[in-house]
């Protein structure tokens, strides 16, 4: 009983953020506080947060970032899943495609920017492509590995039951690979999220194309205008939304594969 209440009101995850906020408040308060050019005080941070919420710039930035991340994530993971299935299920395509995929994934995501911007410019197409490219690899590799490593005992059941190739794949191989695929999806979402911020921050901001939108561009603008309070608001927004995305995917995968936890 006590234990149940204690676990429901568990305060431990909040200890570190509260401690950080306390250190932050102490170091930035008073006349001898830290240089406001290096770190904004909690008061100016809250003011910037409220202002961003009131004039809609912060929710707007968050929404465009989320929309961009999710679009890129879907495109990248659908392609990644398809390629992963082909590599995982058929030997010949695996021999042909797999080494190339392995080589390409060694290229850091942002190293694609010069090439992609030459082809696609600095607009939305470029950003979405970059995000999709980041999301592509984890799910492609996880799907391929999951399909190729379907447990032999279950495959034997399929043989003993005279299942055709299609039923074997839909009833045995894919369900067996599902936890791997979900792990790949989680990683893809994470990379899509990080890639989105990077794309918004690095691509199409500045004087040539005007400012883009999204939290990344919000951060770039804050830096441009030396608004440390806005920088902190942007960073905090990224942390909270990223965490929320991560947790919802983890929750979803626990719901989908209850036998995994046994």
């Amino acid at each position, binding site marked *: 009983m006590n234990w149940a209440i204690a676990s429901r009101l568990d305060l431990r995850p909040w200890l570190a953020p509260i401690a950080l906020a306390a250190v932050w408040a102490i170091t930035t308060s008073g006349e001898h506080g830290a240089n406001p050019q290096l770190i904004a005080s909690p008061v100016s941070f809250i003011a910037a947060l409220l202002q961003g919420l009131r004039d809609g710039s912060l929710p707007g930035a968050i929404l465009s970032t989320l929309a961009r991340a999710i679009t890129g994530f879907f495109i990248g993971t659908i392609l990644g899943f398809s390629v992963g299935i082909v590599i995982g299920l058929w030997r010949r395509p695996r021999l042909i495609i797999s080494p190339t995929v392995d080589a390409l994934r060694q290229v850091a995501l942002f190293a694609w920017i010069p090439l992609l911007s030459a082809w696609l410019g600095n607009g939305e197409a470029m950003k979405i492509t970059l995000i999709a490219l980041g999301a592509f690899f984890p799910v492609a590799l996880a799907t391929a590995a999951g399909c190729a490593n379907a447990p032999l*005992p279950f495959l*034997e*059941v399929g043989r*003993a*039951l*005279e299942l055709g190739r299609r039923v074997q794949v839909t*009833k045995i191989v894919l*369900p067996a690979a599902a936890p791997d695929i979900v792990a790949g999806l989680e990683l893809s979402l994470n990379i899509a999220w990080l890639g989105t911020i990077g794309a918004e921050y690095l691509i199409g901001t500045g004087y040539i194309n005007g400012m883009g939108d999204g939290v990344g561009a919000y951060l770039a603008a804050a830096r441009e205008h030396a608004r440390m309070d806005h920088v902190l608001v942007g960073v905090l927004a990224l942390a909270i939304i990223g965490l929320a995305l991560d947790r919802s995917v983890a929750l979803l995968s626990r719901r989908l*594969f209850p*036998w995994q936890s046994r």
Partner: protein
Amino acid sequence: MAVALESISVTGTSVEISGVSRVFRVDGREVNALRDVSLTVRPGEFVSLLGPSGCGKSTMLRIIAGLDRPDAGECVVDGAIVRAPSLSRGVVFQDHRLLPWLTVRENVLLALHKAPIGQDGREARVLELLDLVGLSAFAGAKPHQLSGGMSQRAAIARALAPRPRLLLLDEPLGALDSLTRSRLQGELLRLWEHEKVTVIMVTHDVEEAVYLSNRVFVMEPRPGRVRGIFDVSIPYPRRRVDADFVALRQSILDILEREATAAELTC
């Protein structure tokens, strides 16, 4: 027993194994899992392949199932050489191997994908089988919600679903506690009589073999081969404490013990 055999030989199939050898390569060394094994199982019989681990009994069963191929010799079931698995030969593995993402009902249904009885007929057959193995209340359960004994019942239902004429059991009760085990042994006998199939069971439990089988093939390892064949002419239902039962169990144990001693001496 003669009467029992006649009444059950209606649909069961015969099995003829002649000169079967199987060699595995382990760490560059050749291991003779089976060498020149020949044996015959009559239609409707319940036989056991009994022996210590490494005697090739499971390999033999996998060859009969069509999951493995012999390097020499052949396995003929009902007049046809076995080349691939078939729904006419139901297999039950020691680790029940129910698909964890399907319910009990869906697992059994999967075995009926070729049955020419329509969707309604398949659903009816699943219910009939779950009723037969006492799992009607668990049709919608996932395997991880079942106990070991219940999982094995479900696996048996899955193997029996397409009405096989030969049931192959690979230590089906080996992972169960002794109470569940002896209850399921009784269940197996009941199913055998009800479905009128030929049963070949792999086991390392002498009592189980004597309790269930018409005949017991005692096997020995290195190389895997049949050491002796025991007719169990005790009428069903058998009692584990009867003098006949105890005496037969003891003489089989004696053979296995001599084997083990000989194996130690040669090692």
